[in-house]
């Protein structure tokens, strides 16, 4: 059992939880994730570690409400517990000093991007953050990113904050303007797909961190498999980060929809059961 010690509502759909997980907090590195099970009947879902405090023995998880599992977890309050937290899983980000790094985060993808971007900054890179969301209310961690980023560009679909437009508009602005040595893209699959198409045109090496369906998270099941450069890879043990220019995003997007019908059944039942 892992106790929740803090909870903060970041936006209408996004909640931040600080959870007791002493062993994970000591071992985790930027880019790694945990598998969480909310309760005895719950799914095992992968959640990227947004931050950690080894002294307190806690990790920070940022969760967007989508279906049953994410609603269940975001309803928990401080003092309540998650049934299971296992990790840290996956390979940590390979952080090195390259020059200028472009950190591109879409929606809740800004949460896993945050520790990675910070690590690149700490390694001595110039760090430009391009953060995108549908509107001002849904944009998370802007302040936290801006605290260390050399420049922060905000894009909202409706123009309610920063510049109006999709995230790739903001990214291209930078690519046109200056030499970028690495781009890191984390967000919805479609956002990562178009970011990868764009950075490829500018020959900028790009990594994407994938959040696929998983069960065990240790390489046992293959639910998370993706095609990278024509070869099948497991996101849980070979990733979660891959060369974004090699990822078959279309296949990945289809596989993310595997349980669309079941998710609806489950979610409708869950909502009916809630007061």
């Amino acid at each position, binding site marked *: 059992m892992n106790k929740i010690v803090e909870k903060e509502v970041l936006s209408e759909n996004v909640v931040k939880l600080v959870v007791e997980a002493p*062993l*994970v907090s000591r*071992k985790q590195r930027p880019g790694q994730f945990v598998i969480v*099970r909310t309760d005895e*009947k*719950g*799914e*095992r879902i992968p959640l990227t570690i947004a931050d950690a405090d080894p002294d307190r023995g806690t990790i920070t998880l940022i969760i967007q409400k989508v279906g*049953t*599992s994410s609603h*269940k977890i975001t309803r928990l309050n401080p003092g309540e517990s998650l*049934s*299971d*937290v*296992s*990790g*840290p*899983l996956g390979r940590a980000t390979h952080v090195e000093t390259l020059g200028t790094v472009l950190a591109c985060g879409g929606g809740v993808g800004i949460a896993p991007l945050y520790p990675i971007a910070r690590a690149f900054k700490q390694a001595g890179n110039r760090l430009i953050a391009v953060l995108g969301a549908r509107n001002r209310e849904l944009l998370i961690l802007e302040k936290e990113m801006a605290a260390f980023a050399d420049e922060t560009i905000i894009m909202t679909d409706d123009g309610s904050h920063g510049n109006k437009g999709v995230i790739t508009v903001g990214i291209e602005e930078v690519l046109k303007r200056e030499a970028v040595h690495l781009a890191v893209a984390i967000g919805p699959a479609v956002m990562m797909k178009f970011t990868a198409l764009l950075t490829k045109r500018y020959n900028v090496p790009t990594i994407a961190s994938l959040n696929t369906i998983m*069960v*065990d998270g*240790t*390489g*046992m*099941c*293959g*639910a998370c*498999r*993706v*095609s990278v450069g024509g070869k*099948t890879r497991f996101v849980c*043990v070979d990733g979660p980060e891959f060369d974004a220019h090699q990822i078959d995003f279309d*296949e990945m997007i*289809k*596989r993310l*929809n*595997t*349980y669309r019908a*079941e*998710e609806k*059944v*489950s979610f409708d*039942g869950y909502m009916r059961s809630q007061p």
Partner: protein
Amino acid sequence: MPVDHQELNADRNQGWRSELRGRISAKERSALPRVKMPELAPMERILGFLEVNVGLNEEAAVLEARRCLDCSAPTCISGCPVNINIPGFIKRIENRDFSGAARKLKETNALPAVCGRVCPQESQCEAQCVYQKMKKPPVAIGYLERFASDCERLAGNISLPLIEKKSGVRVAAIGSGPASLTFAGEMAKNGYAVTVFEALHELAGVLSYGIPEFRLPKSIVRSEIAYLEALGVAFERNVVVGKTLTLDDLREKGFRGFFIGSGAGLPKFMNIPGENSIGIYSSNEYLTRVNLMKAYQFPSYDTPIVRGKRVAVIGGGNTAMDSVRTAVRLGAEKAMIVYRRSEQEMPARIEEVHHAKEEGVEFLTLTNPIEYFADSDGRVKQMKVQKMGLGAADDSGRRRPVVIEGSEYMIDVDTVVVGVGTDPNPLIPQTIQGLEVTKWRTIVVNEETMQTAVPDIFAGGDIVRGGATVILAMGDGKRAAESLHAYLTDKDGGR
């Protein structure tokens, strides 16, 4: 493992046992027919996940026990990887001392209720039974093993062995499958403070995530774990050794010896076009969703599974049989085994093949998939297969399948389960310095002692064998425990 003949003889020469032997002649004993395992009817059992084999009742068990000739030099024991005193426990059943029979089993086997259900007795102990020479069906050793351990569990008075001296020396098992559980039980009996580390939220490895409820009820696995807890074994869930804690962390915490039983967890795919289509599972994923995550109770449990109507399972082993019979229970109208060799070469137990056929599974043997086709959403809808012939024997002694050119045809499917084997989990070998690993990524051990290239680390089960059975894994765990005990005793007098 050497059999202790002195102990066997001492047990056999006890007064009650000599008297029991004299009661009925060998001729009369051998004239008795072998008992039949009562089963749920196919039409009834495919509606749910209830255990198919019902188990023997007292009378049937005692009668079957009577068939055992209590040989003076029993050959059956040499067929058992953990050297159970087979006549010893069977004669106690005949003598209606059922808890004595269970105790006799537990002397050498920490998980008799599991082994009585999932061991391939037909190729092990029962294959060595003296009746084989007489061209008669062997004593149903597996059914009797199950009977004795079920009796004890249902009576609720699980006996614990006396642990003479607790040294408190800490040892760790990595993984909680059958190899580690056996290791843990043996070390606890030797007085060690054992901790078992498991990556998942549930214990028992393949016994939990792999073998279905209808073959091995999870309540039985839980009670075998409870027995180990009563022996003093500690279990830590959600610890991925190599990630959450490293072996060096464990050394720092005071652990003095290690057993790696992390299994062959990585699923093999065939790497043919279309294999990443939606609805194509590894058998590991399919079975894990159902057994570990209880997807068959979705939406009461949150984990979903594709409930296919036309399901093809690729492979011919026990895992393939478990998968295809699971598909039947999830409502498949057409459930198929697609296997590239003939039925004769199938590695699955005959009983599993037989049960699958009774449940309406179709067997497409000498057939191999070469490509999958999906609809516009990416869901698999068809598979292209080709027919195979059998050529000369290969390394495994089985005839090698050869492609028959021009024999391709299409089969409509909406779910495919790939059950063509697993590879060892690389996580542990990758994160421990000094281990020697083969090109199949299994860990190299001394086959007698199960010791790895690192002196205080032992290993066994599928991480060493690459993909074998529960009982072979248990035999490894047992041998490793003996060796580690000897190693630590040698090192510091067992303190």
